[in-house]
């Protein structure tokens, strides 16, 4: 039989790109080689006289020593070392997207890519009718009716415990159980804390940018009084919306691969600049680098324009 029947299968086998993603951007001159002072663990940061030690440092023989590889930041007399990559360090008020990993008595354990799993107390969620507040043996079973292992939620950090673990709440109409959509995980250091983390994008879909690096792409933003309890799993998202969402997920991935900060402007820039490629072409390393490079130039150009 003839190879004509091969229509429908696409394969691309090539040699790997000559340099991996972040470096590829550097070569094209789009990285500013800023003279940031970097330290590595064990480097002396300063003397302790007059300075307080913050995260990423410890004292030894009257000196402040770095425990992390990163940049030295000084705010008044507080010196910290901010690492490039690390597990998510939550702060009160942060918007996060997390995955339920355990259902316990009156609380759920949620994976937010932090050092310890986060907690979502039963008393911290919005539910229809408040029925689950009963203290009874049926609690756990009924809790599963709402959230079970594998479910995704958007939430806000309510409190940071002594051991660093986070307590979340979803007591706001915009938070709750997430419905159909695409989840993309990126390093949390690429997410800047902004005023808004829920965006209805002009291209026809929505994103929720979790401070913990978990980005959620959805057909639209929903505000459910019941916290997303009732989900219609029969609903079929339109092909057009699906295609926009696939493109957005490719954009978020390529931005992350090139260490470009992820927020609504960069995502939309990537979306627009990728228009003459198919969404699946964003998987191609060369295409991804090209678009990342265009995004950086565009945003920088716009920033300079604003300054003028």
């Amino acid at each position, binding site marked *: 039989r003839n*190879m004509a029947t091969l229509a429908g299968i696409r394969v*691309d086998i090539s040699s790997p790109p000559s340099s991996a993603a972040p470096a590829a951007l550097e070569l094209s001159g789009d990285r500013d080689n800023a003279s940031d002072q970097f330290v590595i663990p064990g480097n002396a940061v300063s003397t302790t006289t007059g300075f307080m030690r913050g995260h990423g440092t410890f004292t030894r023989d009257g000196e402040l020593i770095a425990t992390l590889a990163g940049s030295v930041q000084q705010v008044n007399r507080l010196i910290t070392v901010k690492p490039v990559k690390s597990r998510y360090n939550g702060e009160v008020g942060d918007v996060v997207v997390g995955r339920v990993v355990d259902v316990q008595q009156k609380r759920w354990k949620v994976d937010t890519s932090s050092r310890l799993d986060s907690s979502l107390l039963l008393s911290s969620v919005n539910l229809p009718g408040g029925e689950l507040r009963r203290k009874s043996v049926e609690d756990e079973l009924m809790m599963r009716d709402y959230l079970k292992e594998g479910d995704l939620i958007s939430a806000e950090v309510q409190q940071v415990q002594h051991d660093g673990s986070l307590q979340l709440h979803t007591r706001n109409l915009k938070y709750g159980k997430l419905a159909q959509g*695409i*989840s993309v995980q990126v390093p949390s250091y690429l997410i800047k804390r902004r005023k808004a983390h829920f965006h209805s994008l002009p291209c026809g879909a929505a994103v929720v940018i979790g401070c913990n690096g978990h980005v959620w792409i959805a057909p639209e933003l929903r505000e459910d009084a019941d916290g997303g309890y009732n989900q219609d799993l029969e609903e079929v998202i339109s092909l057009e919306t699906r295609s926009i969402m*696939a493109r957005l997920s*490719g954009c978020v991935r390529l931005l992350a691969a090139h260490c470009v900060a992820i927020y609504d402007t960069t995502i939309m820039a990537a979306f627009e600049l990728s228009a003459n490629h198919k969404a*699946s072409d964003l998987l191609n390393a060369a295409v991804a680098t090209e678009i990342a490079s265009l995004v950086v130039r565009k945003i920088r150009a716009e920033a300079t324009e604003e300054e003028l």
Partner: protein
Amino acid sequence: MDVRLSDAEKVFIIHGVQEGLRNDGRSCGDYRPMYVERGVLATTDGSSRVRIGGTDLLCGVKCELVECEDSSKETNRLEFSVDCSANASPQFIGRGGDAYAEELSDALHFAYDNERSIPDLAKLTLSPNHFWRLYVDIVILQYGGAIIDAAAVAAKAALFDTEIVEVVTRQADEKKMTIDLPQGHLTWKLDVKSAPLISSITKIGSTNVVDVTLGEETCSFAALWVGGSVQKAGTEPLVTMTRQAGGGSLDAASINDMIQMGVNAVGRLDAKLMERLAAEETTIPGQTFLA
């Protein structure tokens, strides 16, 4: 690193696959970009590295000269092994790392176990008492789906890369033969043009899909591994192996469709791989990790 999806995410994926638009924009028959390199290891006679999506595999081929009583009785000329590296092991929690690795090496063995895969395999038999055994060892560095497809590509690329030392056989005492090294270091290579490749066809909902991501994998219960060998360039591959993977069952009508898709995929993979292998020059060992 348990990849668990919510019911809603799974529904989204299943509907998408039905419509022919996956979460990363691919259609059901699209493979993710694959990178293949040869000559990546210094301690082997042939080697390759294959990357696709988050999957990263290393393959090394070592030739061992085996002395025995009767080489016609020892039929194993190729030995496959798959090992999950320490780095990939957290990704295997819940998947049964060692057992899965054995399933993979088993499948490779079966796909190669026929006379059509490597027509000049007989050249590995040097005398009634000597033969070459080729150990094809695969190490999984990272797990991101499409492992069996990548493993078969890695094996074929590494075998293509393998240089076997040219030796001379001559009569010795007691009617036995002995092996000598000739003057000058000469090597030869096996003809691996017909070496098989394997495509895993996964059933999601009622649609058949190639190269599933970890997320897509959670939406499926059944898959079929189809091994095929291209006998003549431009013709449809000969099926050398089919194996069911995943815990679910498949009905007879499905299986035919899946085999056909697998055969098409193997044909396409093979054409692209041979193109790639023809083009590449061997790289310096280690360079692949430092780039």
